[in-house]
């Protein structure tokens, strides 16, 4: 079966522009997570969806970041007024459910570069 897919794989944008990053989770997975990985660092949590709702958005750095999952499957991470500090790899992960020992399966990420 297909794993988690993310598009685009690379995105280059200019400071101040708006970007959307897409995540297609594994079919049937109800839990979806977004993480951000800066160069040479471990991933950092951004937001967690259980079904269609954002159940925990405590990791979003500020109100320029927003994410949706309108039908409980595909999710889009939206970044407004991008800044150079937003440059990172954005990773999406899904798991069958949100419980403690359910494995999170990661996609390959979207590398965002803000010039």
């Amino acid at each position: 079966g297909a794993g988690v897919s993310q598009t685009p794989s690379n995105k280059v944008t200019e400071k101040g522009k708006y970007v959307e990053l897409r995540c297609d989770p594994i079919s049937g997975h109800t839990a979806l997570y977004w993480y951000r990985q800066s160069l040479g660092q471990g991933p950092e949590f951004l937001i967690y969806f259980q079904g269609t709702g954002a159940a925990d958005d405590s990791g979003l750095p500020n109100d320029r970041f927003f994410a949706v999952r309108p039908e409980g499957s595909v999710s889009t991470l939206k970044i407004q007024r991008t800044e150079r500090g937003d440059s990172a790899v954005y990773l999406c992960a899904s798991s069958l459910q949100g419980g403690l020992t359910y494995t999170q399966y990661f996609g390959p990420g979207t590398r965002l570069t803000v010039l």
Partner: protein
Amino acid sequence: QQQVKQSPQSLIVQKGGISIINCAYENTAFDYFPWYQQFPGKGPALLIAIRPDVSEKKEGRFTISFNKSAKQFSLHIMDSQPGDSATYFCAATSPGYNAGNMLTFGGGTRLMVKP
């Protein structure tokens, strides 16, 4: 605040040798400790995980040792192979708000196994 500290940052091991990566955590609410392996251009993939009610878990050449009182855990890779060359991340999670389980990652260890 770095809740999971990982060392070393990089490690070079000869083929057939033992690779050891260490992690320490601060949050006593953490209740599940997975290790992830990441190859360049790929997302992290679960390698092995442990709950704090056991002191050791072994899967093939990979072993986690866990010391709850010291709040430390480590990954041992026996008979290291060049194909093990990757970045390894320890992580921790606890029963989360709204049943989500955001992973808190260490900073990563870049392992190189020389043939």
